[in-house]
């Protein structure tokens, strides 16, 4: 659908923005090897030097519930790392802890090779953060907002205008620079917020649902920008709801019930799905779903639009048994075929598996 939408817009003569080159005001400092590497092995020190974000046993307990349970993360420079999960799975809390907005209950974090004094001004300047909710000043114009953030991140006065111009160009804000932010549509606001978060060319970028509520074209545009930053060796941690966006990520983590249930590249995660996925299209999807769930484990069956996905262990026997179940019920099989697993299948499976393990 999205491709159709984008193609149609292209037909209508909409020119997609060309990436604007990075001004490179900052040379990326080679990060010193961890000061806390007690083994002393140069090998490990070398490895650690390209790790931008590292979290160990990160836990956050609020009064009566655990928001993040023992999260372990490692993100390298130049990597886009996606944090996926349902609402309330603990993504935002994780991101807030990692960028120092919230103190973890237990666990250690190291940012850019530093694990002490994470709230120092030096570290702050190397981090870009775009929060889940829109958080620019509604009463200020776009230009005033950008000026403010350029100043608060202490971009040298000489370079400030250059950076603002660059962000304006990249995020296509020329026409709205003088508009008051509060009255702009969400898609625009997200672009401004992104611009404001990366204007100081941070080494580490945290993006908390940057594309929530943004139209497909603007989303593509935003992802082009994000990849641009990754190519320039920034480490990017991004949370999202859209599983199609997860394919842009180099590595992913799935969060469910405050835990990271799996990590790996999109391909690795898909491979974790045990068994074979069968897509069933029946005349009466509702009826077919009920029939299948009454014979198979509930978690093996899920509805995807007008089709049903069934996860089976043995593709030979499984296919036959599904056919027989459906023949016994009142519905007619329109098509039944084995399909490749998508991230969404993997996601649903993993979440359900973690729920099964808990109960």
């Amino acid at each position: 659908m999205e491709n159709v939408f984008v193609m149609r817009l292209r037909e209508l003569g909409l020119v997609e923005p060309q990436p604007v080159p990075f001004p490179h005001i900052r040379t990326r400092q080679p990060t010193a090897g961890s000061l806390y590497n007690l083994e002393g092995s140069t090998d490990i020190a070398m490895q650690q030097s390209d790790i931008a974000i590292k979290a160990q046993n990160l836990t956050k307990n609020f009064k009566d519930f655990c928001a993040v349970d023992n999260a372990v993360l490692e993100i390298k420079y130049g990597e886009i790392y996606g944090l996926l999960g349902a609402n309330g799975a603990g993504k935002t809390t994780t991101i807030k802890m990692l960028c120092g907005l919230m103190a973890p209950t237990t666990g250690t974090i190291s940012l850019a090779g530093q694990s002490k004094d994470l709230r120092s001004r030096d570290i702050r300047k190397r981090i870009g953060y775009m929060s889940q909710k829109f958080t620019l000043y509604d009463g200020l114009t776009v230009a005033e907002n950008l000026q403010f953030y350029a100043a608060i991140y202490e971009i040298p006065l000489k370079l400030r205008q250059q950076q603002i111009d660059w962000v304006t160009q990249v995020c296509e804000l020329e026409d709205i620079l003088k508009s008051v932010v509060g009255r702009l549509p969400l898609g625009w606001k997200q672009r401004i917020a992104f611009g404001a978060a990366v204007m100081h060319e941070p080494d580490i970028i945290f993006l908390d649902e940057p594309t929530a509520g943004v139209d497909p074209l603007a989303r593509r545009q935003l992802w082009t920008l994000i990849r641009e930053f990754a190519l320039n060796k920034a480490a990017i941690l991004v949370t999202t709801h859209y599983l199609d966006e997860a394919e842009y990520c180099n590595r992913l983590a799935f969060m469910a019930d405050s835990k990271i249930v799996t990590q790996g590249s999109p391909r690795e995660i898909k491979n974790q799905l045990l068994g074979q996925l069968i897509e069933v299209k029946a005349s009466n999807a509702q009826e077919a779903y009920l029939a299948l769930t009454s014979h198979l484990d509930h978690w093996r069956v899920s509805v995807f639009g007008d089709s049903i996905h069934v996860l089976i262990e043995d593709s030979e026997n499984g296919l036959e048994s599904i056919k027989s179940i459906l023949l016994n019920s009142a519905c007619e099989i329109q098509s039944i075929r084995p399909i490749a697993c998508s991230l969404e299948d993997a996601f649903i499976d993993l979440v359900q598996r973690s729920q099964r393990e808990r109960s």
Partner: protein
Amino acid sequence: MNIILVQAIKEWQEFQRDRLSLALAFLLPLFSLLLFGYGIRLESKNIPIIIKDLDNTSISREFVQRLYATNIFIPAVTADSTSPQDAIGRGLAKAALVIPKNFAAQIFRGKTSPVQVMIDGTDIANTQIVYNTIQAANLYFLGMLQKQSKPDVTLQMVVPHLRLWFNPGRQETFFIVPGAFGVILWMFPALLAAVAASREKEQKTIIRVYAADPNPVGFLLGKTLVYFTVAKCMAIIVMVAGALLFGLRLAGDPTPLLVATPLYVLTAVLFGIFLGTYASSQTVAVQATSTIGFFPCLLLSGFVYPISNIPFPLSLFSVVVPARYFVELTRDAFVRGAGWPAVWPIPLILLGFCCVLLAGSWFGMRRMQVKD
């Protein structure tokens, strides 16, 4: 320093686009001054009284005349048939006075002549005034009579007492308006600052500030700087308006006022910032400022009720009401004119309040982190 300026510039840009803030800064203080200046009258005038003169002699008419001459009473507008009880019950009159038939005759016989007075007791303040006024008028009247018939007996000593109550003067604005400066210059700077500090939290913009800047000083002082400037303008406007509308003039040395006013509005701004950093939303901040700020300022500052009238445990609380000190200072500057010898500790006390409030705000924000 740089960060303070950055915050201040941003704050100013936000402020000058926000209609509510602009109104709070310039319109509402003037409105409040008019309200306080013209609205508050501690003295009672024009209390409707119904008088039934059953005697209707020259003596009784003179007695009635004496009552009206106090300028406290006006005749209640009632039909002749209305009984005094009815008139009070229906709220047409606050007091009723019945002069009996043989009022004059009794006086000439040298006997006491009872005059019946009924007072509406629902309004305590008025009751006292009516009671005292009638007593005083009566004494004056008797004094006159005695003077006429027996010149050797005088009751002149009563007269000075009466004058206090009879004072219809304009002096009262001199009491109210300098006090109103204290209330207005407390309330509005505090409200403005509280709204500004909590707005960042409500709109979550504070998160980006947390993420970018580990030090709360820039954030706090940037805002303080803007609202301190705005509040100083407010002070000038309000005081000039006070001088023009109510004829207030500086009495004596103006330097205590010049020193204490900036300190006082700074205290107010910091008070607002302090509450704003602890409040989670603008609504909470406004309510907190009104309850914690406004009521003590109105009731415990000596603006309306003398501090000496506040009962014991509560009177201790008035010590931490900065308005109390400033009201004392403005009254001195505009009315008494005693200058530095009388008011020298006040700027120091205000400075102390500033330090405490600034430290409190800093403490609330020191971690620049989201609260659990």
